[in-house]
């Protein structure tokens, strides 16, 4: 954040306007990333700081796919379960991993089915400890978004995030879990409920 940088006054800071979470700007664009990197390192030659240099280039916008509809029928059905949804996404996740040669799933040490079972149990019964639950949820979140990137028409990262919150049983499970965690007497459950479960932009979905 520029405002925070102006308070802390580090020796040299490069200001970029890219989406939070993408400090080098554009995935799979080595030339763009290289320009950002060189601009940051070039500031080391200057000694007139503390300085904030405005990076002149913006990340190219993603195509406007408002109205994009997920090509895979994943909208939850009344009888649906989280584990069934996870099973339906597994093929797409496997395709994504095969294409990229890597996955960011794997913090919890659980299989995605076991992570799904932990979330299901948390909703239905006693809450597990906050940290393993948080890691299982983060693994599932990564699993869903990586799977969606391999759909025949994957849309954009923005439409995939909208799909996640609008259409998946898992997102509905997170929204249902939030008040239960918030009501827990455990401080770590409360932190999960109030800070690290639902993004600020999606908290309006909490009833």
């Amino acid at each position: 954040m520029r405002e925070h940088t102006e308070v802390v006054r580090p020796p040299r800071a490069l200001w970029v306007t890219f989406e939070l979470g993408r400090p080098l700007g554009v995935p799979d664009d080595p030339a763009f990333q290289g320009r950002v990197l060189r601009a940051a390192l070039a500031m080391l030659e200057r000694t007139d700081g503390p300085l904030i240099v405005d990076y002149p280039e913006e990340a190219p916008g993603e195509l406007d796919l408002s109205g994009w509809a997920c090509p895979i029928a994943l909208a939850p059905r009344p009888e649906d379960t989280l584990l069934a949804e996870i099973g339906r996404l597994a093929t797409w996740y496997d395709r994504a991993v095969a294409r990229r040669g890597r996955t960011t799933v794997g913090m919890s040490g659980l299989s995605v089915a076991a992570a799904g079972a932990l979330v299901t149990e948390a909703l239905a019964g006693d809450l597990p400890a906050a940290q393993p639950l948080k890691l299982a949820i983060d693994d599932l979140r990564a699993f869903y978004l990586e799977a969606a990137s391999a759909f025949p028409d994957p849309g954009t990262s923005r439409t995939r995030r909208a799909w996640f919150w609008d259409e998946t049983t898992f997102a509905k499970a997170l929204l249902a879990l939030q008040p239960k965690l918030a009501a827990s007497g455990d401080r770590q459950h409360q932190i999960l409920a109030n800070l690290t479960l639902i993004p600020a932009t999606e908290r309006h979905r909490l009833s």
Partner: protein
Amino acid sequence: MVKRLRDLPEVEARHLSLDRVVCPTYDDTPLLAGPPLAGRRVAIISTAGLHKRGDRPFQPGDGSYRVIPAETPAADLVMSHISVNFDRTGFQQDHNVVFPIDRLRELAAAGGVGSMASVHYSFMGAFPPDAAEPHARHLAGLLKSDKVDAALLVPV
């Protein structure tokens, strides 16, 4: 690499406002000249909550860091940052958009910088600064022992 609060959706801007996030202030800013870039040894210090698969995940209030050797394959990098308020799909697609290790390696090979550190590091940005200070002081010693004279801090 920083953004303005006013560019964010209102709820995110409120979440990150200076009323809620206490930033440390310092009486002065240490700023030193150094050798030309082509002679510098550069380390990446991320605050994206990155670590090798199997390393300790980050937890709320965690001011410690994780070690990422330069030769770590991309497939072994995971992110356990506790925040849900930034995009992760970019990292899922290409780790270099968060942790530009391949770009730095290319720059070193092309002579744009002298060399790349043998080890890089990641903190998890959502920590109180006091919690990180002892770890940061220790890390400074490690960087010196690796003969690093340029640190590229990459927040998310």
